């Protein structure tokens, strides 16, 4: 009796699976039958599955033979769609879909690569089709999904993978199979130094951001602001210690004196002694590297101790996360942070506003750092495929190497997109400095993109 119930339920489950899969138009119909087999394997011998996989293989190869101009160009997207970073991953998915929409249809008014005409023009207006895969933040799954998209979904290139740890293994799989891997967001400096041939990164990495902070300070010093000393205060895991270390290098290079390096344990309950050390060292500029909870505590301690240096210049992350300004309110005002993107850039770059209007109409949210970079990465890739005029991986790789997109045609504050032929890193990528003014971060540097006058020095707590 029980046995029958179990069987019945298993069958129902299988039916549910089939139903779900068939509602999903993106997936190819043939292999869609397969997952229904999975729950049923248990009854008989497990080896059954092998047979299917093997039958599938020749069929796939037949369809792979490329005609002169394919109707669609398939691009694999490996992102975190479930788990801790699901919100970011799904937002990125939306941004990719908008970029594909712009490539696939005619938007002559948008000054973006591939917008004016429909599809990949050189390939008889072939449509770009995105094949999404979820890596669940696991480096192993990231590599596995990349491999599957390349060998079974016949994608011509991969976009991935948000988290640096997953980009690491996923790009390794793409490298082995000889398919271009375009990385939109991962910022670990090690990624482009692996000597890979097929790895391209559009976003600037962490070392670039650290250097920018010192270029910003040097710019101010050249204008006559007196800045001599800096101090770092950082959380003591790798993110913070790395940041402090590179900041020390750049401080020396740009001629600033580091008067203190103060580490604190991430998630600490009290920061009084660290702030006391800062007061004793008395730097002109404080350079914090923190996650959001510590950033909140740090600012509250500054206020409680009535400590105001000339400026607080943060390494993004904790200080720019949405919940930071919401929580600290006016206490957060006048903090400066490096940032990858800000919506107020549209005042000097109207294209950002145009794209953001489309994006918010379609998905009911504004562009931010992650989505803007996803959007840009797909356009860069589509542009390369068009210039390659082919879906051959090697041709696309060559075209990517020859990429040269000017600043006006991207929605980022970058000077453009051009890849270093050795490392695949975008050499024109850069960031901005934002300052919290009236509870909102506004662009203050580079000066030509600024929407607000920089407030310097940091006002004392009783003079606000």
């Amino acid at each position, binding site marked *: 009796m*029980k*046995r029958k119930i*179990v069987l019945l*339920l*298993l069958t129902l*489950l299988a039916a*549910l*699976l089939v139903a*779900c899969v068939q509602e*999903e138009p*993106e*997936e190819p119909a043939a292999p*869609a039958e*397969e*997952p229904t087999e*999975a*729950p049923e*394997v*248990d009854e008989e*011998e*497990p*080896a059954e*599955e*092998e047979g299917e*996989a*093997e039958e599938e*293989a020749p069929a*796939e190869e037949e369809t792979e033979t490329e005609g002169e101009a394919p109707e669609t160009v398939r691009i694999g997207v490996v992102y975190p*769609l*479930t788990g801790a970073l*699901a919100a970011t*991953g*799904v937002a990125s998915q939306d941004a990719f879909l908008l970029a594909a929409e712009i490539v696939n249809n005619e938007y002559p008014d948008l000054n973006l690569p591939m917008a004016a005409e429909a599809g990949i023009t050189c390939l008889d207006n072939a449509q770009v089709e995105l*094949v*999404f*895969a*979820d890596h*669940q*933040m*696991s*480096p*192993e799954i990231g590599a*596995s*999904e990349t491999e*599957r998209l390349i*060998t*079974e979904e016949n994608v011509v290139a991969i976009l991935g993978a948000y988290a640096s*740890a997953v980009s*690491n*293994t996923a790009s*390794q799989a793409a490298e082995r*199979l000889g398919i271009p891997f375009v990385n939109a967001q991962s910022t*670990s400096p*090690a990624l482009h130094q*692996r000597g890979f041939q097929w790895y391209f990164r559009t976003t600037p990495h962490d070392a670039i951001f650290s250097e920018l902070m010192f270029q910003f300070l040097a710019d101010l010093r050249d204008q006559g602001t007196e800045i001599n000393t800096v101090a770092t205060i950082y959380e*003591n*895991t*790798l*993110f913070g*210690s790395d940041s402090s270390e590179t900041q020390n290098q750049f401080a020396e290079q740009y001629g600033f004196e580091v008067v203190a390096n103060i580490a604190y344990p991430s998630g600490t309950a009290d920061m009084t002694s660290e702030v006391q050390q800062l007061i004793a060292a008395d730097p002109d500029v404080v350079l914090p590297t923190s996650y959001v909870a510590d950033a909140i505590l740090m600012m509250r301690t500054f206020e409680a101790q009535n400590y105001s240096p000339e400026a607080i210049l943060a390494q993004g992350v904790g200080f720019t996360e949405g919940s930071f300004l919401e929580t600290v309110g006016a206490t957060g005002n006048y903090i400066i942070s490096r940032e990858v993107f800000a919506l107020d850039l549209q005042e000097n770059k109207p294209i950002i506003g145009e794209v953001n209007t489309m994006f918010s109409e379609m998905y009911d949210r504004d562009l931010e750092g992650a989505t803007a970079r996803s959007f840009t990465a797909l356009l860069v890739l589509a542009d390369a495929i068009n210039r390659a005029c082919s879906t051959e991986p090697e041709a696309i790789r060559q075209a990517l190497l020859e990429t040269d997109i000017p600043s006006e045609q991207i929605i980022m504050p970058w000077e453009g997109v051009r890849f270093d032929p050795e490392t695949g890193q975008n050499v024109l990528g850069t960031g901005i400095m934002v300052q919290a003014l009236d509870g909102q971060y506004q662009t203050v540097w580079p000066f030509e993109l600024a929407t607000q006058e920089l407030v310097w020095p940091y006002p004392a707590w009783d003079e606000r």
Partner: protein
Amino acid sequence: MEETIVTEQARPFPIKTLILLLLAAALLAFPLVVSLPFPRRLMILILLYAMLGQAWNILGGFAGQVSLGHAAFFGVGAYTSTMLLMQLGLTPWLGMIAGGLVAVALSQLIGYPSFRLKGHYFVIATIVLAEIVHIMFTNWDYVGGAVGLTLPLLPESLINLQFHSGNAPYYYISLALLAIVMGVTYLITKTKPGYYFRSIKDDPEAARSLGISITRYKMFAMAVSAFFTGVGGAFYAQFVLYIDPNSVFSFMLSVLIMLIPVLGGIGTLWGPVLGAFILIPLSEFTRIYLGGVGGALDLVVYGALIMLVAIFEPRGIWALVERFFGGRK
């Protein structure tokens, strides 16, 4: 304990050997007929997790000590072989054994205090101790901290345990590892330690009264279990070529290692294998076909199946298989 032995002796499957031979032949021939990397990778994962599940089963299934901290052994194995490779250039084969031995040492450290605890308290102790190891590795800069370790790419060869042109060698290695663990488990079930394990599981007081040193045999079960889990970790590091604390020490990994034998059939020889053949493809295929749209539908389906088994056949799917075969005869 009596139950399983009775079924096996009173009703030996005449077709059992045949099925086994067919299965072995199918497994050996698999990479020859399937050339696509993804199904091969799936099979490698199945074999690896079957091995991990079986290693857990020695402690959790046969000796009855449910651990939810096996990720600690897995991670320590992965980190040991990787660090030995990166610092000393030691071949991963020796690294694998070293990784297993370090896992054994850790298991004895964890086991000694926590075997004084019973039932749920032992489970909690293993969770907590594994999390401590996880946090230590996350903050330990020498081993890469939170960023993890990228294994150096070496020329592909058996001695380097790296294969870049195809994953068939990984497949055969994982198959061999599983075969070894299966063999050891079989041996244990047929010899004195196995009987001791079961007696400890069924009635520790009675076992003690018969003069069995409970702690010693629990520690022994833990050591064997940890050794193979550590070896599995070292293999994983060589296969993925990148490890970080979140992927090798995560609590979810401990749960998965436990889930496989529990779902397949706890305390049975074939349960973990069956469990891996069901759970791993299930999680992969639900993710592939349902995961791309977001919304975590894949995980819902995955969870639903586990609940079904838990409700209708708590002894695992192997018990179901046995009943089907038993019924037909």
